[in-house]
């Protein structure tokens, strides 16, 4: 009945993404995670910004909002606060959420508002032709770093964890079933959940860095990916060039923002009645 999953949740295929683009693998993991959950589909809203990743909402059969570059989290915050019973899922990319939208990202984490932010992180700006992004590894060749990228990249999991997100994980397109499970946990989590999806852009980043084709690029993840548990036993030299994946934070102790705001309403009402 897999075929039904695609026709149930997706519209307007084929996608506009290049051959081998990781975004489709992430999108598939998202709809499979939703399919395994007992959600009221009428109450699920997808919000995205601008970039290849954000185009994902154009293929989803849900309430969707394709917003401005970097602004998805701001729009999503308004949706969630207007109607806290909605499940609001933000689809974004590394440039969208960590560069132009970085301020909204950290403040959503600080508030711990119940949004699920799924970042399709392909280490470059794909839509504009492959320029370096805030997650491009040092030394990478991109259209704006032809001598090798020289800016230190963000680790988005470290960033969101420090900013206060109560669920932080990294998944990889190399492990799509595990990605699906992580996304499921993220959507189920009450509070801000952030999932960094390690992904590939074969047409631009891959081509410019002479990584052969999409399949070869994908195969390189096998040696790069290490689990949190594996990483614990590895030295910093051994961790050079590795990408650690798994759930870094899954904390139910922090109060969620809609609940915090509900207390504010109670106090306001007490002030006029008392």
């Amino acid at each position, binding site marked *: *009945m*897999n*075929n039904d999953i*695609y026709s149930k949740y*997706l519209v307007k*295929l*084929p*996608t506009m*993404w*290049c*051959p*081998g*683009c*990781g*975004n*489709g*693998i992430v999108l*598939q*993991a998202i709809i499979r995670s939703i399919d395994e959950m007992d959600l009221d589909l009428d109450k699920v809203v997808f919000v995205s910004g601008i970039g290849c990743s954000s185009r994902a909402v154009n293929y989803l059969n849900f309430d969707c909002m394709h917003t401005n570059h970097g602004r998805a989290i701001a729009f999503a915050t308004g949706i969630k606060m207007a109607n806290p019973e909605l499940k609001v899922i933000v689809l974004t990319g590394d440039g969208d959420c960590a560069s132009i939208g970085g301020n909204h990202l950290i403040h959503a984490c600080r508030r711990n508002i119940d949004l699920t932010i799924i970042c399709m992180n392909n280490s470059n700006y794909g839509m504009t032709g492959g320029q370096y992004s805030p997650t491009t590894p040092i030394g990478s060749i991109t259209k704006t770093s032809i001598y090798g990228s020289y800016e230190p990249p963000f680790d988005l999991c470290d960033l969101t964890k420090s900013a206060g997100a109560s669920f932080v994980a990294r998944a990889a*397109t190399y492990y*799509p*079933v595990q990605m*699906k499970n992580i996304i499921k946990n993220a959507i189920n989590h009450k509070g801000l959940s952030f999932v960094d999806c390690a992904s590939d852009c*074969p047409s631009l980043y891959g081509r410019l860095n002479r990584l052969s*084709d*999409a*399949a070869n690029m*994908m*195969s390189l993840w096998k040696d790069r990916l290490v689990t949190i548990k594996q990483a614990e036993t590895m030295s910093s030299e051994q961790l050079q060039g590795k990408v650690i994946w798994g759930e870094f934070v899954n904390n139910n102790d922090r109060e969620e923002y809609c609940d915090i705001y509900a207390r504010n309403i109670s106090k306001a009402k007490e002030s006029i009645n008392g």
Partner: protein
Amino acid sequence: MENNNSLKANINSRLCKGCGICVLFCPKKIIEVKQDKAFINNIDDCIGCRQCEYHCPDFAIVVGDNNG
């Protein structure tokens, strides 16, 4: 009990962009890309493991019951 052997991969050529990621993950090595489209050479060898399906970025592969 579900019989995995009756589950077979189906490739939708309309959606396939020929990236070859399915070829990488197929444990039976029965998928091949010809003229930018993936093809299954020997469907009888398919074990229905879904590795190609889950890794397909284009929703072009569906593993289902071929008899059904």
